């Protein structure tokens, strides 16, 4: 990976984790909207769609500005529905960009994920174009400026027999056919968005398209409140014989307008294309060199029992069940290396330890933990922290505990936890990333299911689960992890004390002494 690119992604990630940690402190990781940015974007676009249907009933292509002005005058419904349409569009765009930034910073944009990256960027571009048509629909000063700039860019291309910019010079009245075409685009593009969204999530299992219900309603409620308190302003009507003076501009969608006004159209095309190409290809340039690519999982056919658990747990649908070659009746798992991101979640799901990336299968983990124990003198009061390298425990020693690093909490095989406890350690704390911040989507979710809810490969009932705990903390949340560790140690101490009390003869201990027997 080029040094500059590495620094760029590291710095981006550092800022992102700091912001995440700040928001986590206020809302908790389960309701951190930054972790749910992709799902929030989809949910808010649905709000845009619903409000847009209402607005469509009142829009007239023959009198665009007047019809929008009438809507803005409807104090009870039209005004806030229009404002909600606007604010939800803005928030959806911000959420989508945040989502893209996270994927970039976490190296989740190349290899099998390149389709999601490319389709995601195209989605953002289509959303921007959709916003462009929406603002032109209003036909206020901003709409006219957008229409004129758009026409200027298109006229620079040898596409149209007649320059379309002439439509906006005042030579003749603008035909309503223009507004009809614009309206058609504004309605048709969201259909394209649906197709793109389907492509965007086509390589992930169980795509999350909606945030947790409480967060969703909180976001919609907040935008609704904003719409009621501060309704979107309608600018002055478009006038081709007047230059815009203090018209309202939506910076989220039309940030480029003040920048491009003074530039020749070809310069805008060149700069825009270069920017788009850089953003599209950046993850490919910044990915590790080919020999450092994490290897895909493989299946040991002799060990595979055909239970389908790895197939069910894989977050990227990289595993298929196929007919086996050794004549046994049950199917065998097969990993498609083109889809596998080497998360190792399959290794954690396989009870017979027959699948996983090389060096990270259940068997490999058991031999590694044996080495780990042999190299240390572990006492009965010690806590071993099994830490995901992407989370808070990934940066080394933690308050004198023994830290055993893993690539993803979902990769951890429960036998490792059992082995540690059987070896005599006091407790095992698994430091996982916050649920929706997992670099491999579902690692913490499957880990919790396997440890506490009997999902294959489950932690065996013979293991004392009170001595196992999962803590969720992002990379910038070491204090939170330390607090969880301290609390866990306290609980373990109480447990040990209680265990000691079992040996006490209660009759003897509670027998009144001379002092206590005094009235």
């Amino acid at each position, binding site marked *: 990976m080029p040094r500059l690119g590495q620094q760029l992604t590291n710095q981006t990630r550092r800022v992102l984790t700091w912001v995440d940690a700040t928001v986590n402190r206020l809302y908790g990781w389960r309701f951190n909207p930054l972790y749910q940015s992709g799902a929030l974007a989809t949910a808010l676009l649905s709000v845009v769609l619903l409000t847009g249907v209402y607005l469509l009933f009142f829009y007239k292509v023959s009198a665009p500005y007047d019809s929008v002005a009438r809507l803005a005058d409807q104090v009870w419904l039209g005004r806030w529905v229009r404002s909600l349409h606007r*604010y939800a569009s803005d928030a959806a765009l911000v959420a989508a960009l945040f989502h893209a930034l996270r994927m970039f910073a976490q190296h989740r944009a190349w290899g099998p994920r390149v389709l999601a990256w490319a389709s995601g960027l195209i989605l953002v571009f289509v959303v921007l174009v959709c916003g462009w048509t929406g603002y032109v629909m209003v036909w206020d000063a901003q709409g006219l*400026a957008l229409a004129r700039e758009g026409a200027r860019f298109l006229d620079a291309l040898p596409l149209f027999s*007649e320059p379309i910019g002439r439509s906006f010079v005042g030579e003749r009245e603008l035909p309503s056919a223009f507004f009809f075409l614009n309206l058609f685009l504004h309605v048709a593009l969201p259909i394209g968005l649906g197709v793109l969204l389907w492509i965007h999530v086509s390589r992930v299992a169980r795509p999350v398209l909606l945030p947790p219900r409480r967060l969703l309603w909180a976001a919609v409620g907040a935008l609704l409140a904003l719409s009621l308190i501060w309704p979107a302003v309608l600018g002055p009507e478009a006038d081709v014989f007047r230059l815009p003076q203090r018209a309202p501009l939506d910076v989220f969608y039309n940030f480029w307008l003040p920048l491009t006004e003074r530039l020749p159209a070809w310069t805008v095309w060149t700069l825009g294309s270069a920017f788009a190409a850089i953003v599209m290809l950046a993850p490919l340039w910044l990915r590790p060199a080919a020999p450092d690519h994490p290897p895909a999982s493989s299946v040991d056919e002799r060990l595979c029992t055909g239970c389908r658990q790895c197939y069910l747990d894989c977050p990227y649908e990289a595993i298929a069940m196929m007919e086996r070659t050794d004549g046994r009746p049950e199917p065998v798992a097969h990993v498609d290396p083109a889809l596998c991101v080497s998360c190792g979640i399959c290794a954690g799901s396989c009870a017979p330890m027959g699948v996983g990336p090389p060096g990270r299968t259940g068997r490999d983990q058991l031999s590694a933990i044996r080495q780990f124990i042999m190299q240390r003198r572990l006492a009965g009061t010690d806590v071993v922290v099994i830490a995901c390298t992407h989370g808070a425990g990934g940066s080394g020693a933690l308050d004198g505990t023994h830290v055993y690093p893993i690539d993803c909490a979902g990769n951890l095989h429960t036998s490792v936890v059992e082995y540690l406890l059987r070896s005599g350690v006091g407790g095992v704390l698994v430091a996982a990333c916050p649920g929706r911040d997992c670099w491999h989507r579902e690692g913490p979710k499957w880990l919790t299911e396997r440890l506490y809810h009997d999902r294959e490969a489950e932690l065996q009932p013979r293991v004392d689960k009170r001595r196992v705990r999962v803590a969720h903390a992002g990379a910038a949340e070491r204090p939170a992890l330390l607090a969880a560790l301290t609390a866990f140690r306290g609980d373990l101490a109480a447990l040990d004390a209680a265990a000691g009390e079992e040996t006490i003869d209660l009759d003897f201990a509670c027998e009144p002494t001379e002092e206590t027997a005094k009235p």
Partner: protein
Amino acid sequence: MSRVFRPVRGALLALGALAALGALSQAPYASTEASHALLRLAWRVRGTPVHECRRLSPEELERLPVHMRRAEDCEPRVLSYRLEVRIDGRVETEQLVHAAGARGDRPVYVHRELILSPGEHLVEIAFVREPQHEEEIEHEAEETAEEESREHRDDERQGPARLALHARLSLGAGEVALITYDPEQRSLVLRGRGPADARP
């Protein structure tokens, strides 16, 4: 203490984010030229097509397939126009305007915008078709009234040979004046704000 204030800080953060969303959603915007006036030139004239032919040499004919051999190779094209704009006597634009289209066979379009300081200005525009033949160049200076009227008849089928406008404009800040071609009057006309006095 920190636990007590956490919901308050959370609410403040949400309020801040919403306020930023509302403010950036309708930030005040003015055109970069809003303090100036604008003179817009926009018109379309039908082009005058000409065929420029040359005789092919025997070698060139030899290289062509038999069914494509013609004695003359003719390239159709539309004559260009020379546009000259003077503002207050100073030349602002002087350029050749070619016919539109990848092959230059579409009408001739003019679309220019000139930034002016607010106030009164004298605008002079000349839009002259390039000469069709060498003879036309020689006789251009000796154009007779009869030739002029023939030209006007041609204008209806082809583009006008010459368009001109002298106008005095008075424009305020942010105002736009448009000069366009009126095919009925067959002359340039002034529209929009500030047209004070115009004559072709």
